């Protein structure tokens, strides 16, 4: 995890820390009430949560030569039943976002720059965290509600070994990790699955506020921890922009996951996402448009859950979700290290089956093919204003000395 900018007013791009920070700490939590209509079987549900409660630490005693970053995530205690999030799926949850593991991230990185103020260099990272693939974790992006492509566009909570090389504006990452997804908040990666999967990411930073990445991953049996389940081949491409005044941000993302039994492809799931965020004084607004296909799997007696592992390689169907989400927030405190931000998010989802005939008819299951969601809440964060998640070492883009305040995203 890149925790570097936890407390820094002048945090650099992608959460790079100021060089004087030996120990940085951060924490956040979001209280939110969500109403989804209809949530299931024509029934509306309204629920409240304490979500994304995390504490983070970053230790950097030798200016990047050896850094330790960690994040504890307490969602296992606060949203064990899952958070209503229409269309989302993964790790045995469906239409509710799963809680992340208690030890969300703990990585040791060693970075060697080619010169004291250079951006170029090499790094090695070992620990539990994000495989070098895809885009930033949604937790570090503008919205409280996750996009439903989380399992298409990120590979979090794995035991990873990542090597990275940066040469000017180019960043190359290659990593190995365990393919198995977590099966619960207290789960740990299976030791016999270490390094059975790999991914690589190439990032180009054409100008300080821009970032273009493309990545590829081969993930062994993610949904069956014992192995032997369907494998995944994942692709991602994105463009990320943020203005120099740190008052605007945009992300355009495409990702695709193909499922394979042996060498035979069975199904593919594709996602297109665009999101933008802008701040004016204490007010901020954000808009996200997502167009994602998801597998519809057999549900258990708790219809917000699916079998982990699944009982075979088949799915009931595949549905396409087009979700437009808008957010308005206000910062009540004018302190960079402390954020208190009430917000409202409204989402409208349109869902339709993409395999015909289909074993899953969304209109029949939900009672409508259109689903509204309203969330009202407040985020309290301490020293987490500039966080990005999913990159380590030299892959955390950095501007040459003199500081670049780019990608400072207060309140996100």
């Amino acid at each position, binding site marked *: 995890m890149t925790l570097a900018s936890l407390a820094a007013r002048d945090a650099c791009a992608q959460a790079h820390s100021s060089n004087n920070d030996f120990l940085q700490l951060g924490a956040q939590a979001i209280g939110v009430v969500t109403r989804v209509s209809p949530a299931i079987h024509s029934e509306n549900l309204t629920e409240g949560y304490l979500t994304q409660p995390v504490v983070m630490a970053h230790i950097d005693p030798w200016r990047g030569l050896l850094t330790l970053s960690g994040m504890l995530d307490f969602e296992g205690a606060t949203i064990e039943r899952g958070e209503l999030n229409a269309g989302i799926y993964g790790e045995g949850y469906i239409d509710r976002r799963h809680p992340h593991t208690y030890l969300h991230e703990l990585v040791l990185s060693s970075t060697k720059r080619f010169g004291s103020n250079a951006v170029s260099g090499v790094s090695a990272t070992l620990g539990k965290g994000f495989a070098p693939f895809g885009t930033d974790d949604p937790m570090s992006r503008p919205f409280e509600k996750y996009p439903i492509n989380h399992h298409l566009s990120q590979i979090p909570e794995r035991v990873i070994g990542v090597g990275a090389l940066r040469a000017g504006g180019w960043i190359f990452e290659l990593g190995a990790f365990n393919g198995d997804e977590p099966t619960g908040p207290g789960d740990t990666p299976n030791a016999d699955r270490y390094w059975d999967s790999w991914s690589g990411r190439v990032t180009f930073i054409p100008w300080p506020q821009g970032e273009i990445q493309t990545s590829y991953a081969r993930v062994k049996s993610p949904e069956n921890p014992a192995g032997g389940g369907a494998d995944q081949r994942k692709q991602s491409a994105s463009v990320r922009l943020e203005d120099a005044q740190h008052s605007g941000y945009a992300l355009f993302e495409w990702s695709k996951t193909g499922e394979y039994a042996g060498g035979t492809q069975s199904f*593919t799931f594709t996602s297109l996402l665009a999101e933008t965020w802008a701040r004016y004084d204490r007010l901020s607004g954000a808009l996200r448009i997502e167009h994602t296909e998801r597998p519809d799997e*057999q549900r258990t007696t708790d219809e917000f859950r699916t079998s982990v*592992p699944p009982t075979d390689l*088949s799915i009931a169907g595949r549905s396409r979700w087009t979700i437009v989400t808008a957010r308005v927030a206000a910062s009540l405190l004018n302190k960079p290290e402390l954020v208190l931000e009430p917000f409202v998010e409204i989402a409208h989802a349109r869902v339709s089956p993409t395999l015909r005939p289909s074993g899953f008819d969304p209109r029949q299951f939900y009672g409508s093919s259109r689903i509204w969601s309203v969330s009202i809440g407040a985020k309290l964060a301490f020293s987490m204003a500039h966080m990005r998640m999913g990159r380590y070492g030299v892959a955390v883009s950095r501007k040459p000395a003199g500081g670049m305040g780019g990608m400072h995203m207060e309140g996100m």
Partner: protein
Amino acid sequence: MRKLLHLSALLALACGVEHTVTPPASPGTLATVGNGAVSERYTGEINVRGNYAYTTTWGFLEALGNAVKIWNVSGNTPLLADSLIVDFASTLGDVQVSDDGQLLIVATERSGGSIMLYSLANPAKPQLITRYTTALTDPGVHTAEVQRVNGKLYAFLSIDPANGSPARLVIVDLSTPSSPQQVFTAVMGSPYVHDVYVRDGILITALWNDGIAIWDIGGGARGGTVANPVRLGGFSTVGGKAHNVWWFHNPATGERRYAFVGEEGAGAIGFSSSGDIHIVDVSDLTAPREVAFYHLDGAGTHNFFLDETRGILYAAYYNAGVRAIDVSGDLSSCAAEARNFDLRCDLGKMGRELASGPVGVSPVYIWGVQLAGGHVYASDMLHGIWKLDPVP
């Protein structure tokens, strides 16, 4: 621009996969006699005895797959006689009547896996005797094969894997139906054990990517018992995903040479399926070897039933309906043009397919099939139960 082109190419690749099902190789059809529709649930497995058929239900359509449908099949059109609702189950994947017709056993998953034992004193009105559930039947009983070994009735339960709990086989003594007793359990399957076949004191387990394993449970002369199975041999079928087995006892020749192994690949209900039938020569139970296969483009097999007298295999082929295949004679010998690169014979190219059905209805998604009372009965996830004429 290059990036845009690359992106466009990748997007084009994401546009979906065509699934074209192989048409019947011969003009033979399994003519439809009647259909008993189920519209509110997906239909699962089928078992027929006498004038009654029992079908299970799967997943969620308009309602949970927690119902057993009881059909009167004495007429041309199966008539729904009654339904059983099973609490604490989202899928009832398997159903079987005991060989004496006294018991109906239903497997439940997930979670809180169990088997439901019903009395068939009145076959139209099964009465619950007991629900057998233990920590070892969690999170679900995928299949329950009920067979007699040395005169005693047992249920062979294939248990789903769960987090931290691998798939396993549990064998339960049903001598006293009101009080089933576990006599054996073992972890097996990679990652699943989906079904077993029991006959003549031999147990054959379908172990997914581990292929099949053959066990002496009283008939293999190796000292094995139901409580202490002794492994005789095993074989990894081509492509793995070994799902179900039928060991062919040919009454005409006395041969017990072939085991038919169903491969269950990926599929989507109503849309697609995949997986071949693998023919394994088990003349030597300690050294089985695959000699032939049957493949359909765009469809895959699930459960099947063998008319041993006529040597006809009726295979449920999901979106390709029921396929009837001639499995008489030597399946390991074929002309060069019917031989695969790995020397296995391709039953399709050998012209072994005899007929298919039901015809004139699409889509279908056939889960199970059984020949009983001179008719072929098929359970269709989308349409309930079909009564078909067999191969003439």
